[in-house]
């Protein structure tokens, strides 16, 4: 604090918008507002970009999780009256992480490569080649700061405890070795049915899926088409990425409707082949997901946004005359004023501020009361031999009968510069109603994965059980397990961005972000077409 007070004054002291926290939603807002000619101050208490979406070295990740999960002592908010025409009200923060369990099995090895780890805080996360985030990246031109690589393969954990390859495209179905000929035919026929439904050139009634079917649960529709269980699981959990058990009638609104399922399928299909040098539907940014936030921040900076890192916000300023928000007080003691404020979700605005907040409609809001349990493993072994980067989905009830939602696993190898060449970072996440439930599911997935290493390792098959267990320990170098709260974006004179959700990509978060921008600036276009041609680079850089 002492050196913060030495911090040079920020000049000017009045902005159109102040954004606190450099998570992806905040970064996009900052970039969008600057692109619309607003003056923006972007603050972050941390010395790095990304907030809850950051990619961190192992050590920083550990200390972040430990400090962010520390219980906060509730202290009554203090309102200090100044001689001026506004009042400052101290901000409170809440703890959004809990149940952190970090184990290191080979500290020396990790220490040796300490600088080579770039671990995502909000993993597992990928981008679909045709999703909103990639669209935004291309439209805004931040692809010049980013480089992506394809996820090589997707797998589904089937009822019988086997990995099933997910054939998402025509070429993949053709090449697949595990599907029978009839299954290939059934799956491709279903894909074609959907394509025909979505094709604007097809206008015949017969080529469209009826409205009645569109409003029924997706799994019922798949049943109606007589798709066998295996195909259904692939479509529901590994392509449409459904979270809850879709065969369970009790889950009510959590059942994916046909129209939603088809939209997700369409996203998957348009993703395949969008970029010539990308194979498959999924992309991952080199150096980790945190690069995305950073890229948008750089973009905002180019457009005039002012950045101050390592600068916490300690209090809100309230106008005495109209009781409205007026500005923020920084840890340095400086007061900064703005029309609008966007806060990180970890802040609690004291009751003294009578904020009217409007929740943003976003699809994931149905899961708002649920938590996200996340796990991270650093291993010496790949889940599947010869595959570096891959996605693995455990549909509900495949790990144990009480597994309520899908557990998704993303393995990223050293070729994406997130860890040393001979290691792998494995991200695990699932939605849960309680921390214990979530941890149980993530643990079960971790166990299942470590068993895969053993069965995958050809030279260990001849060795007896005891040495196997030892070998397993050696495979797993580090693991972390934590539970993260959910929160939706909220709009008001003080707005909030959402926390990372349980989805695999950013689409729901981006929808909320775009909506927030439109609410804040109803007359502005979100990222108007840039006129400077030099900003855009070849799409080829996309992978």
């Amino acid at each position: 604090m002492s050196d913060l007070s030495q911090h040079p004054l920020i000049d000017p002291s009045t902005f159109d918008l102040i954004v606190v926290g450099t998570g992806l939603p905040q970064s996009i807002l900052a970039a969008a507002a600057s692109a619309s000619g607003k003056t923006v101050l972007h603050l972050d208490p941390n010395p790095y970009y990304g907030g809850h979406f950051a990619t961190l070295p192992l050590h920083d990740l550990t200390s972040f999780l430990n400090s962010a999960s520390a219980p906060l002592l509730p202290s009554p908010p203090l309102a200090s009256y100044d001689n001026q025409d506004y009042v400052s009200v101290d901000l409170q923060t809440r703890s959004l992480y809990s149940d952190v369990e970090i184990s290191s099995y080979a500290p020396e090895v990790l220490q040796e490569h300490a600088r080579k780890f770039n671990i995502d805080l909000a993993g597992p996360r990928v981008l679909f080649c045709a999703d909103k985030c990639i669209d935004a990246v291309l439209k805004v031109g931040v692809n010049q700061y980013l480089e992506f690589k394809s996820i090589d393969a997707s797998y589904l954990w089937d009822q019988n405890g086997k990995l099933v390859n997910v054939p998402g495209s025509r070429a993949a179905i053709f090449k697949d070795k595990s599907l029978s000929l009839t299954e290939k035919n059934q799956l491709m026929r279903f894909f074609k049915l959907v394509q025909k439904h979505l094709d604007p050139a097809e206008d015949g009634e017969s080529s469209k899926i009826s409205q009645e079917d569109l409003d029924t649960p997706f799994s019922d529709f798949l049943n109606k088409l007589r798709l066998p269980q295996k195909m259904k699981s692939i479509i529901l959990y590994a392509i449409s990425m459904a979270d809850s058990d879709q065969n369970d009638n009790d889950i009510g609104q959590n059942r994916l409707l046909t129209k939603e399922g088809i939209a997700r399928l369409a996203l998957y299909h348009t993703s395949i082949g969008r970029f010539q040098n990308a194979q498959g539907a999924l992309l991952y940014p080199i150096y980790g997901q945190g690069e995305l936030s950073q890229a948008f921040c750089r973009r905002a900076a180019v457009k005039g946004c002012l950045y101050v890192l390592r600068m916490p916000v300690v209090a809100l300023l309230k106008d005495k005359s109209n009781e409205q928000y007026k500005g923020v007080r920084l840890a340095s003691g400086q007061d900064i004023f703005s029309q609008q404020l966007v806060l990180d979700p970890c802040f609690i605005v004291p009751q003294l501020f009578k904020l009217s907040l409007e929740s943003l409609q976003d699809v994931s809001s149905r899961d708002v009361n649920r938590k996200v349990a996340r796990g991270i493993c650093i291993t010496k072994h790949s889940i599947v031999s010869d595959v570096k980067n891959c996605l693995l989905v455990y549909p509900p009830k495949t790990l144990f009968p009480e597994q309520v939602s899908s557990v998704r696993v993303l393995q990223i190898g050293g070729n994406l510069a997130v860890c040393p060449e001979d290691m792998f970072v494995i991200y695990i996440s699932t939605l849960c109603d309680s921390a214990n439930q979530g941890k149980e599911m993530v643990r079960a997935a971790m166990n299942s994965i470590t068993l895969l290493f053993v069965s995958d390792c050809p030279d260990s098959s001849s060795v007896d059980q005891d040495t196997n267990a030892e070998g397993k320990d050696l495979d797993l170098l580090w693991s972390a397990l934590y539970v993260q709260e959910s929160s939706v974006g909220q709009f008001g004179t003080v707005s909030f961005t959402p926390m990372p959700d349980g989805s695999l990509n950013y689409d729901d978060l981006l929808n909320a972000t775009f909506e927030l921008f439109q609410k804040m600036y109803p007359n502005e276009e979100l990222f108007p077409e840039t006129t400077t041609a030099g900003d855009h680079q070849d799409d080829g850089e996309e992978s």
Partner: protein
Amino acid sequence: MHGRPRKPQKPEEAEASAVEAAKLQNLQSQLLANHHQKNYAKEALEVSANLLEMNPDLYTAWNYRKLAVEHYLKESSSDIVSIEAILNEELRVAESALRQNVKSYGAWYHRKYILSKGHSSTDHELRLLGKFQKLDARNFHAWNYRRFVAGLMNIPEDKELKYTTDMIDTNFSNYSAWHNRSALLAKLLNQKAEGYFPMEKVLNEEYELVHQAIFTDPDDQSGWFYHLWLLDQTVKANPPYLVSSWPPHSFNVALSRTRCLDNHTPSPFCSFYSDSGTIPLILYFDQPVQGVDSSSVIVKSTANLRDLIWKPLSKCNRDTSKAWISHLTFPQEELNSEFYSVEVSIGHSQKIASATGFHHVKPTQISFKVAVNFKETPSEDFGNERIRWKDENFTSCGISPHNFPFGSDNSTSEGDYAPSTSEWCVETINNEIALFRELLSETDCKIGKLTLARLLMAHAATSPHANEMIQLEEVLDLYQDLMKFDPSHFHFYKDEHSLVLLQKVTSTRESLLRHCYSYKEQTSPYIDSTACLRLNNLSISRIGCVEKILWVQLLDLSHNELGSIDGLESMQLLSCLSLSNNKIGSFTALEPLRLLKSLKVLDISYNEIGSHSIDTTRYLFSSPLSHSEEIDLSSDEMATNCTDLASYWEAYFLFKDISLMQLDIEGNTISSESFKAFLVKILPKLHWLDGKQVQ
């Protein structure tokens, strides 16, 4: 490159294209001037390069450049550096022309020409091809060029095969890739290259691969075409065998010079009349063969037979044919009737071989007896009786089934005519049938039905006695379905349906007998036998299964939908033929008749001869002239004297070698008084024309 709609031109585009046209015209006239003056100066070459970049399809410009290259090469014959420079420039021009139009024949040929000069590197060409194939993976020019480069640079076939696998893996809707695969595999299999032997193993893997494509997307045809090729390889992999013959094995043939038959002949099927004391000997194989001659076919007889000359029975005079004919001439000195036995054996030499290189290896023997009766006969009163193809003139004949010359039943041992199909082939076809039945139960698909029909037919051909009838019914149903659901290919399905229908009719002695009738007028001078096969009113559009009916002398094909009679040329015993009320469109379509030397009565009334101004059958030949025999017109009186010859040339060409006695032609557009007069002129032996006696 595919599926891009054409948009109407905008005004500014039209203007731009007018400017371009003017520029093009200017360059073009400069080029032609340079070409004429043999001006190969640097500036002149530049003009042609500019022109070709704009319009790569201009052959003259490419030729000009070739001449220029030759010119410079001669000048700098020893200077390697300048030769290199010249050829490099050509490669550059060709490449930029290809960038303009990747489907320009001229540019690809020019590149080939430069490469044939021994220039450029494999890597460079393959890289260039890689670029073009990225633009359009199916571009057949690029594939064609790839084969050329691969051949020139001796790239091993299996490496190229791997390339096709990669291309198919990326997108299996690629005819060019599948096609190249078939070409490469055929070569590798032929060489029995390492890893490509035995053939059965390789083909099994290919079936496996193509199944993935077909089942993933049955509506994509490229896989199906490859499957068809595979099926062809599977079935063709069998050595040819003799299907039938005339005379059939263990038959007694009565050969006489009389037309009026005493009632002593053993069967109406085997009496045969011949002026010259000869009978035809016909061998019919399951696939076209070559190498049938007096050394590969040994004929032994108690009669003193002259050396036999074998001819293929094929419209186009090729040297391969399914049917081969020779004539046995019996000595005429003796006045009394005599029995001769004849033994024909084949399979002792490897000379008889199919087009795919398989040899007829199975020793096969046919023996029959010929009763020769050359008693002097009173000269006959020709021309008084006319054959009438009316129903009332036919009675269902009381022919004893045992005298019936029906195919393999009469051979001494069953094995004689049986195909020697490999177990693998039968098993493969059975597997495929099961697989496609499964596919069709999942999804409705035209080409799937067609393939199943083909597989069932292949099955019937390889194992002729197993449930054949049931399968034929299934095939007929499949083609009926296809005619209904795919009307744009109706005629193709109709033809296939006809062939299967004929196979069904001729498949058993009983079903064939149902179509056998006796002609009432026993005394008719045109016929040696009264047995008539009536295949009328079956709505068939093609002829097939002639090997089962080689014995037929009277054939009624009226009231069908025949547009072609290909195959009929093998029925060498035919003397009376009715094709009335069919869809014969031209005399060219009747050309098989030219090989039927014993044909005397022909009814082609009520067809469509003359109604089609364009004779499409001509297009079936590589050159419109290739199918015509050389005719020495100078010695031909008709040719010099007849003024109508030009307009009725095709009729003349057809009829000049057949000595018809009775002809019905009414009900055709061409039939006019002048045409009839022309016919009377060219058919000197004609007694009846359209039911009227010829004066």
